[in-house]
């Protein structure tokens, strides 16, 4: 077991208190100990909403490089624990230089979008194979083909973003046709707050994926805030958002579809809040996190290495390849494209 694959502890029950007890993490709820987990089993802690973490536990996590991140109860990323800066300063210098160089920025932005388009196309193609064409599916597929043809000719990052945007709106126009359960409808992507269950589910899964990508980038010593496709903005993990583009459809959307279509997630797992926001309930979050963690442990054949790798390692592998490209050890960056 590599350290990248250590388990993440997800705390989403409200009012839980986490503290350090020797070399273990003690989970308490109203004075009752729910569990004791030796720290060496954990790679990170993700806390949703009202979760207290003792200062000594935080110190220890910072010291040992355990990823601690905070989310709102609904799964929006709020912040994370930053220990001493580690990693290779020369690598980060190379990363900044690549951003200052328009041609390498354009190149990387193009590769992330290429992977996103190809992986989204896979999701659409599979739907067509399984249950035939619909108007929206054909339009989305045609849109992806067109965007993929035009991508190599894009001269600026803005053009790349434009192609991505067009394909994404066609994709989400067709996404409703991928839902088999009549229980949910999907009329386009919305967030902050999500207005329907499918958007709530997608937003939550994307938030989980983003932490995976952030942790992977930090693990190889890259600066997760310095991105190429996504513009720099204070507090925004632009490079993590770049990297997640490779996994959004292939990992995130397919998981959401599986959960809905297998009726593992139903309308009872959602709550409507005043103002029309729809959020996963505590029970719903648990269902999704368990499925997400199980998916991390499944293996796939890596298209580059032709070896079986756990899905949870894919962001780490891609982060490593990206670091090698930025250092100049690899002439090309090979984004992850599924099968």
């Amino acid at each position, binding site marked *: *077991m*590599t*350290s990248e694959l250590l*388990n*993440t*502890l*997800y*705390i*989403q*029950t409200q009012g*839980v208190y986490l503290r350090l*007890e*020797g*070399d*273990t993490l003690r*989970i308490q709820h109203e004075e009752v100990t*729910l*569990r*004791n*987990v*030796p720290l*060496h*089993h*954990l790679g990170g802690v993700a806390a949703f909403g009202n979760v207290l973490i003792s200062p000594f536990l935080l110190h220890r996590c910072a010291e040992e490089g355990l990823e601690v991140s905070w989310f709102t109860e609904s799964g929006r990323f709020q912040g994370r624990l930053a220990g001493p800066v580690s990693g290779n300063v020369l690598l980060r210098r190379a990363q900044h230089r690549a951003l200052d160089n328009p041609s390498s920025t354009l190149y990387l932005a193009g590769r992330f979008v290429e992977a996103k388009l190809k992986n989204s196309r896979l999701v659409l193609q599979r739907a067509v194979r399984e249950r035939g064409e619909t108007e929206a599916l054909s339009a989305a597929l045609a849109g992806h083909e067109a965007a993929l043809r035009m991508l190599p000719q894009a001269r600026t990052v803005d053009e790349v973003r434009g192609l991505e945007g067009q394909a994404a709106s066609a994709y989400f126009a067709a996404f409703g046709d991928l839902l088999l359960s009549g229980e949910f409808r999907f009329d386009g992507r919305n967030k902050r707050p999500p207005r329907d269950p499918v958007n709530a589910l997608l937003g939550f899964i994307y938030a989980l994926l983003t932490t995976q990508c952030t942790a992977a980038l930090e693990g190889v010593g890259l600066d997760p805030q310095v991105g190429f496709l996504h513009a720099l903005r204070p507090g925004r993990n632009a490079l993590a958002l770049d990297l997640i583009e490779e996994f959004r459809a292939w990992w995130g959307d397919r998981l959401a579809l599986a959960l809905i279509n297998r009726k593992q997630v139903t309308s009872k797992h959602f709550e409507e809040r005043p103002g029309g926001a729809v959020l996963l309930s505590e029970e719903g*979050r*648990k269902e999704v*996190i*368990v499925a*997400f*963690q*199980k998916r991390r442990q499944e293996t796939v054949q890596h298209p580059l290495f032709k070896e079986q790798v756990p899905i949870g390692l894919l962001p780490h592998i891609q982060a490593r390849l990206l670091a090698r490209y930025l250092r100049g050890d690899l002439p090309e960056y090979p984004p992850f494209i599924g099968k």
Partner: protein
Amino acid sequence: MERLDVLVTYDVNTISEEGKARLARVAKVCKNYGQRVQMSVFECRVTRAQLEEMEAKLLKVIEPDKDSLRIYTLVGGRDKCLRTHGQDRYQDFDDPLVI
């Protein structure tokens, strides 16, 4: 890094007050590496280095002429080596941990 499932069992002579303190200290070390499955039995999933570390710490605590410590390695993992009956509070820390 490869990890091993090991079983740690002990008898600590608790006639004296010192013995009771030793018993508590042994349990404390074990807790840091694994989980209690019976009164004086712990199961730990550890790397070789962690196993050496735990063993060294335990040896510092026990009195060799009064106490006994046994560490069994479950070759091939606990799933292969273990049959349990009755109460079982073991938790696999590699399963999704969602509270």
